[in-house]
């Protein structure tokens, strides 16, 4: 499985890419394999207020529905409407075209609290 070094990660299996205050969020390679065929996503609305570690989107596989948690507190800046019409992108390209939303973080401390790829991989192996 692939966990790009430049990204940060959450215990709930989101990946986060930082560009200034803007955080792009998706689900990790581990998560997309775990839930398998993604068939439906529910995205947040533009300008919706997200809270760190609270659900902000939903992803549904054939089997079940899962919450996507916001990695930071802030406003939704952008959503990826392409995955609404083509949810399979989440499986095919989870770190690229399969992204979910961009949130504008209010405080840098939210970014600092996220896991590096190394810590995330360790978390997957040991569960801590």
């Amino acid at each position, binding site marked *: 499985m692939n966990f790009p070094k430049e990204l940060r990660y959450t215990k709930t299996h989101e990946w986060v890419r930082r560009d200034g205050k803007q955080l792009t969020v998706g689900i990790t390679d581990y998560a997309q*394999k*775990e839930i*398998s*065929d993604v*068939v*439906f996503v*529910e995205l947040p609305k533009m300008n919706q207020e997200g809270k760190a570690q609270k659900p902000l989107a*939903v992803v*549904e*596989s*054939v*089997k*079940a*529905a899962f919450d996507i948690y916001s990695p930071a507190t802030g406003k939704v800046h952008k959503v990826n409407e392409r995955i609404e019409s083509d949810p399979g992108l989440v*499986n095919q390209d989870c770190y690229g075209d399969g992204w979910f939303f961009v949130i504008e973080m209010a405080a840098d401390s939210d970014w600092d609290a996220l896991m590096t790829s190394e810590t995330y991989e360790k978390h997957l192996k040991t569960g801590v």
Partner: protein
Amino acid sequence: MPLHSEFLVLNAKMGAFGQWEVPLYFTSILDEHEAVRTRSGLFDISHMGEFKVRGRGALAFLQKLLPRDLSRMENGQALYMPMLDENGGVIDDVIVYRSGPQEYFLIVNAGNVDKDSAWVSSHVTEDVHFENLSEHYGLLAFQGPEAALIIERLFGSQYAALRYYRFAPFRDGFISRTGYTGEDGFEICVAKSDVPKLWQDIRAAGQTAPIGFGARDTLRLEAGMLLCGHDMNEDTTPLEAGISWALDLSKPDFIGLAALRKQQSEGVKRKMAGFILKERGIPREGYGIQKNGRIIGKVTSGAPSPTLKENIGLGYIEAAEAVLGSEIEIIIRGRSFKAIITTLPFYKRKKHSS
């Protein structure tokens, strides 16, 4: 489980199913689902339970234990039916196979083997011998439009010629024309030690995809087949579950008959219904069903249907509201989504004359 190491080699995504670790999918649930609908697929369902009932009193015993009339069964015939408690509640659903005038096999659900075994044993009479052979037997399901051709090539035309719900002896067990997918196909019961070789032989003979439990669930749901423990249990009767076709209420006696006759004369209060979502949302087990703001039922199974490209579900609905074509609402994450009650099955295969 006989094929566990094989699944790891195939890089299957494993998951828990009761006490067993089973493959959820090998490549993708959607691909595997399609393989069974259009070609063929192979399932390892060896964790299911096998019981043998034999002896002079076997028929009389089963006639009392089970709600369907077994007296007219022929050798080599199988029948699906629920196994009921005194209240008419569904303990399990089983397939009964008559292998001889005094010998029957039962195949029961994996998670219910201990419960069923205790229930059957507690009713056994002295002229009946009951054995739980679940440790000995394994079971493969080989399903899909190409399955019959491959069975014929591998094992002979006598198996490919079997009619629906008929079976013939095979090695230590049998091959039956049965399944849980809504597609043509077979179930093959052999000693667990024979399962790995049989799996390899069938896989090699056709371009047969291994199928996980994810697709097993979407296939059976499209076919309108109930999943015991989810779509029915001890708190539901077969009249409510819509499987009265698997009962013979004219039989003089069986466990649960009095309760069912009473319920039949009073009318059921709720009924199993199938529905299709008309708005974008996927129903899941446990979601509420409402109409005009009033809760009228609960979803017991739901998924996106890969074949129909619709979101489908099953659930119990107040009998007065369970009307074909009527509009209901499914509560998904606090919002209501329109759905239409529809006939079952959702999917019916086209029958080819052969």
